[in-house]
């Protein structure tokens, strides 16, 4: 099957970054130096070539795009300063925009002004929507759900989650189709037989547990460039802190809702700080706040290759995460103050609006990597498994 080239591909990708990549003449130094590129998947050179030639399906259907953690060794070694690492980042943004049919991601990435306006307006909309149904601000205790009704938050959250799920699912299906077509993998190959299921199970374990949650290769292969940094300043730890912090908060929220469902503790009931769910939320929040703060600082200081080139969309994600984390703590402080402060209610409204926005925008910005990367890593592990079997 031959592919119809899209002559405008490179120019389109360059709207997402990768300003210097035209200088690439395919020498392959980047592939040679890359600690992740191996026989199971070679990059970045090949992917740059896809973009130059106009092989759009090949670029979007490449599992290699999402195996890269942007350590930047390739860009340091590039003889033409074509910044292959920067290209990979830009191509991932391009991929997120292409998996999204709504054009929202493309607008947020390629137009900083429109992106910022959307981010602010959306938060404002959520705030106004919630405030429209507000109740009294009790002065005897910080009764947050008296101010913004709990069912309203809960139901809005459910609707937002469903929307996000659908958008994410469409993207994942599009991506998985693209990759499996490139890799020559059918549904039968994945779930068609006992052996296939076993293989897919191993690949899933590798993609989700070992690589995504465990960040194995990120920790072991990609950190040589930061060898002089203490562990808590390294990219993998900052990322793990953010990711685990976020997951911890998500778990705490689900548990809190679960406890209400089984009737152990109604949502909003005051609890001591050592109460397990509250404790989990507090610790996770600290990790999230540390991680996002460091990510923001690194970007401000351009501390490494990955942090040296920031788009408005990158900032939006980090700022939303950071605000969510910070406002969460402010609410917690307000809750344990002897007399309830009025600002507690307003911070709460702000917190809920930003958190809603964060979730709603997830498939349309960098946050989407949380889904796309494991999918790609699954195919990567599957290819590696197949190659190992052949060997």
């Amino acid at each position: 099957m031959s592919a119809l080239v899209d002559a405008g591909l490179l120019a389109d990708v360059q709207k997402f970054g990768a300003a210097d990549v035209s200088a690439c003449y395919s020498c392959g130094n980047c592939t040679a130096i890359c600690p992740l590129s191996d026989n199971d998947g070679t990059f970045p050179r090949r992917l740059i070539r896809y973009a130059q030639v106009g092989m759009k399906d090949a670029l979007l259907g490449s599992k290699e795009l999402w195996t890269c953690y942007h350590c930047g060794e390739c860009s340091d070694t590039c003889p033409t300063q074509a910044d292959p690492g920067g290209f990979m980042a830009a191509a991932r943004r391009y991929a997120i925009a292409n998996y999204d049919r709504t054009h929202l991601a493309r607008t947020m990435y390629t137009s900083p002004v429109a992106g910022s306006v959307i981010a602010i307006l959306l938060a404002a909309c959520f705030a106004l929507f919630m405030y429209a149904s507000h109740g009294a601000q009790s002065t005897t205790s910080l009764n947050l759900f008296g101010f913004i009704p709990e069912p309203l938050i809960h139901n809005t959250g459910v609707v937002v989650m469903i929307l996000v799920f659908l958008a994410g699912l469409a993207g994942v299906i599009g991506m998985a189709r693209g990759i499996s077509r490139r890799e020559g993998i059918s549904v039968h190959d994945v779930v068609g037989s006992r052996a296939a299921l076993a293989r897919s199970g191993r690949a899933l374990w590798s993609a989700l547990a070992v690589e995504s949650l465990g960040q194995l290769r990120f920790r072991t292969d990609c950190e040589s460039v930061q060898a002089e940094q203490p562990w808590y300043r390294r990219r993998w730890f900052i990322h793990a802190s953010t990711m685990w912090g976020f997951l911890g908060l998500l778990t705490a929220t689900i548990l809190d809702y679960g406890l209400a469902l089984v009737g152990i503790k109604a949502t909003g009931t005051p609890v001591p700080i050592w109460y397990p769910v509250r404790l989990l939320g507090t610790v996770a929040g600290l990790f999230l706040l540390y991680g996002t703060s460091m990510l923001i600082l690194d970007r401000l200081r351009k501390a490494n290759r990955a942090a040296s080139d920031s788009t408005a969309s990158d900032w939006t994600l980090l700022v939303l995460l950071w605000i969510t984390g910070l406002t969460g703590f402010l609410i917690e402080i307000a809750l344990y103050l002897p007399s309830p402060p009025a600002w507690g209610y307003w911070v709460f409204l702000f917190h809920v609006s930003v958190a809603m926005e964060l979730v709603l925008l997830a498939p349309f910005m960098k946050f989407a990597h949380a889904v796309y990367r494991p999918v790609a890593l699954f195919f990567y592990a599957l290819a590696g498994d197949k190659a190992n079997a052949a060997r």
Partner: protein
Amino acid sequence: MNSEETTVAGQRSPEERRIGVYVCHCGGNISDYVDVKRVVEAVKDEPGVVVARDTIFACADATQQNMEEDIAQYGLDGLVVASCSPKLHTVTFRGVARRAGMNPYQYTQVNIREQDSWAHTDDPDGATHLAISLVKGGIARTRLTTPLEPLVVETTQKALVIGGGITGLRAAIGLADVGLEVFLVEKERELGGWVGRFGTMYPHDRSGHDLIAQLVAEVKRRANITVFTNAELMAKSGSFGNYVAAIRVNSDLPELIHVEVGSVVVATGFDTYQPEVGEYGYGIDGVVTLPEFKALIDASSGPLVYHGRPVKTIAYIYCVGSRQPGANEYCSRYCCAATAHAALQVSGLDRGVHQYHLYRDIRTYGKYELMYTDSRKHGSVYMKFPDDSPPAVARTESGTLIVTTRDTLTGGEELQIPADLVVLVTGMVPRKNDELMDLLKLPVGTDGFFNEIHPKLRPVETVVDGVLIAGACQGPKNSTESVASGLAAVTQSAAILKKGFAELDPLVATVDAAKCTWCEKCIDACPYSAIEKAEVAGRTVAAISPSICKGCGGCVPVCPEDAIDLRGYTDAQIRAVIDSMLEEPVA
């Protein structure tokens, strides 16, 4: 009796000659397999040999000086060096003889390296015997040598230039400036050739039209250049240094003009390869050759439009008609750089054009590499296709022009490029010039281009003395290289004409008028038309022009009367060589 065998005043009889023999080790190239000392021992008492020595390197400066001292000290009148091929060192040792006061044509080179030691490394004893035999043959020839003097021909201070393209025009100006009278013949109505039709050219971005206009103005300023346009060379007679050219001017009243010239510069240029219909889709609307494309972009001042359609994507297919096994196997040399330049020209007209270059190898050699890099910076994408999988061009039912190809750098996946225009990068082919080839006796290579004598040492000379070739008629060249070779032809013309006479090798064929019966057999054998009818003492005989004869020897064996002999290689000398070689039994 031939002139060679008549006794020359002061010449000793063969047995009384005083010959020096030097057998070379060639540092081991010869002596590892041939017992050089034994060879010297075996020939030192041959009749006429006065001195025989072995040398480590006969060609070394010190050894040459020793030979010169020997010639003076022993009063030698013959010299034999047994070493390598005559192609390498004949001139060297003729020089030794000349410097020591001996006639250079009494020197004989014997080849015991290429024809002996290198060929018989497995049989040292046999190789030694063969060497002895070869050296004895060389001595036998030398005994019969006579002093010969170069032929001196007076030369006409005029030159003929055939072809009024950039090479011919620049050569004509150069010839005029060294003080020669010049006749410039151009077949077309206008001067300028290919370059005159081009717009901006690489690497200086000046228009070809302007370059030609400048050269034509220079030509007009020189009174000693006569230009014949719409004209052809019809005949060439005479001999080296004094040719007579017949030029026909095709006007309403065609006239034949005869001019005398000392040299002829052939600068007839090239044709571009014309693809067959169907070759890479040629014939389909939207598939054009590089010259057609060049005309299109030269005529454009804004975004390209072809047949009313805007051109936004261009696919170039390289090496069309060049480097084709079994056909034109050579590289046409100019096309890669010309295409990179054309791509830059297109980017200048419209930055938004996508340009795909499908190539086998890119050869933007030397400074032209910068154009390649520059075109890449302007967005040109270069894609190498595998030799066994060339691109295919077709128009789909929906009307889209599609080029199907493979890109080596992405693993050779099949790709389809929708193109608005496909440019076949066609190379150079030799011009059909059969009449001129016959007329000037120009040697042609297997590729169809005119052949020089030696690409490095005699790059514009042909085997016909005084007939020089320049520009793309010799083989693919760009205009820079063409002009350089045109000026080389100027220098070479000056070298042979400016001193007023020329010296020719005396190793030519001669006719014994007493034996000749004018059977005309030799006339057919001569590839240079050197033989004409002559009256000698009331008889009709053959006469060979020494200035036309190249000494090839083709006429000698066909003469039924044995009336022709070749100076330096007379029948008597060759017979003596054979006889003496037969005396030495070969193991």
